[in-house]
């Protein structure tokens, strides 16, 4: 394992300290417990938005803290949901009196820890609502699984909920918008190489020199199936099929097309993927009206990508376009 780290146990501490130093214009960082809040938190009268989860998916979530998006991000250990303490502390730190929304990705650990924190916050008089992101169509949403995972679609939920809070929506309304996005966003990913969790020091899985993993999660969890490497266009088709069939997306829909890098894939490849994905959507009569390309929901140095499609309407489009000022996503100010 070759990594730019000191003691593997300090990866999150040191990275968060570095993040705070690099973005002192946007955020403040708490070191014990560890969380990141926007500099001017709490914003009086505004719904606070908190997200979090294991580290290793950067820029998610710390990179999304700032006006127009998250009020706080709570990074756990690498690939490990944070404990309730920092979630609770972050929740209190961003409560401006209008309540706090928790945006939680659907993993057992995230659900349980956020649940505990929400209970504790409620006991301390902070109103909390939670939404559960579960956009990954690679996983069957059945009684016999932990349900679909939350992956890159989370970025879109956070941006749009953030904009709703920013324009002054109340907690219930912000939660409803977030849930509307969750209902209309679907994703699926592929891995070409595994990632190495610093404390593990070994790849999370192994793939032969000609194998790829279709339906990969963002924690190096194995995916749906392992197949031989194919041309980029064929891989895109494999991911888009299940995504588009799921809601389904149909001719006439306007969508946001998001190609997300898993961390180790060069940008040229992401744009080759985007090109084909846009082509497929055009063939199906689905109109791409907004786009996002880049490393937003990563899995350390994993090579691969995911495709996310969000069905847009006028309101969601307006909220997507609204100003945002964070380390990783910024426009309009």
């Amino acid at each position, binding site marked *: 394992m070759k990594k730019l780290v000191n003691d593997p146990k300090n990866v999150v501490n040191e990275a968060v300290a570095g993040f705070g130093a690099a973005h002192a214009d946007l955020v403040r960082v708490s070191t014990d417990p560890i969380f990141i809040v926007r500099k001017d938190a709490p914003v009086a009268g505004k719904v606070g938005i908190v997200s979090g989860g294991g580290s290793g998916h950067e820029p998610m979530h710390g990179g999304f803290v700032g006006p127009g998006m998250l009020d706080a991000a709570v990074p756990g250990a690498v*690939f490990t*949901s944070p404990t*309730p303490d920092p979630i609770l502390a972050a929740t209190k730190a961003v409560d401006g009196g209008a309540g706090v929304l928790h945006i939680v990705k659907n993993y057992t650990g995230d659900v*349980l820890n956020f649940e505990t924190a929400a209970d504790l916050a409620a006991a301390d008089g902070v109103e909390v609502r939670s939404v559960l992101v579960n956009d990954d169509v690679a996983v069957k949403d059945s009684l016999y699984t932990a349900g679909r995972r939350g992956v890159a679609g989370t970025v879109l939920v956070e941006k749009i909920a953030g904009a709703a809070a920013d324009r002054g929506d109340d907690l219930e309304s912000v939660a409803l918008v977030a849930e509307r996005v969750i209902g209309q966003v679907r994703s699926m990913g592929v891995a070409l190489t595994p990632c190495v969790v610093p404390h593990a020091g070994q790849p999370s899985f192994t793939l032969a020199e000609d194998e790829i993993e279709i339906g990969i999660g963002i924690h*190096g969890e194995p995916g749906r199936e392992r197949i031989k490497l194919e041309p980029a266009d064929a891989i895109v088709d494999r991911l888009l099929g299940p995504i588009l069939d799921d809601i389904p997306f149909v001719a006439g829909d306007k969508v946001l097309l998001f190609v997300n890098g898993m961390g180790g894939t060069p940008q040229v490849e992401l744009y080759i993927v985007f090109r084909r994905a846009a082509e497929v959507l055009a063939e199906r009569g689905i109109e791409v009206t907004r786009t996002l390309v880049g490393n937003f929901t990563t899995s350390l140095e994993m090579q691969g990508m995911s495709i996310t499609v969000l069905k847009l309407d006028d309101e969601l489009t307006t909220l997507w376009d609204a100003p945002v000022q964070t380390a990783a996503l910024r426009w309009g100010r």
Partner: protein
Amino acid sequence: MNLGATWAKAWIRNSADVMSEHRIELIDLDREIGDGDHGENMDRGFQAVLAKLDAVPAEAGPGDVLKMVATTLISTVGGAAGPLYGTAFLKAAIAIADKTDLDGAALVTLLTAARDGIVLRGKAESGDKTMVDAWTPAVDAAGAAQAAGADDLAILRAAADAAEAGALATEPLVAHKGRASYLGERAIGHRDPGAQSSALLLRAAADTAAEA
């Protein structure tokens, strides 16, 4: 043999050692069908517990020890295992809150409360390929041993044996809860890491009793 706060502390101290020793093994199990952090999570949590163990007051009962373990695990482990083990120890602590020494019945109560806590939080059923598949056989075996008049050590050994067998028996299963459930058939042939760490904990309990 006398299973009071001293035993509880020794159990937890031994558990911390065991989690350190088996850190890589648990990571490897979790790499196969999860995300490769279970050993790190358990080790981090029990090291934090260890650091607080000496601060537990001398007059504390075993329930107080377990309560400290619960809150410390909750605030340091994270992931799925943190809340689940945290709840297990919390419910166990509550169930034996009034005891200073644990007899066989109290041990069965402790184990049952712990298992029930895990089920309460995680909603897993037996056969879902989770830590429940170690705990439920352990509770059943402890209950049967106690009903048959076994002594404390034998009860704990029965629990540990059953937990180990239960962990082993997760190997052929498809998972219905936790990360391994994403894998469908591909989880078959791999042991559940949480069931394995549960078996390690219960073996440490029995070994600690044997040393006492």
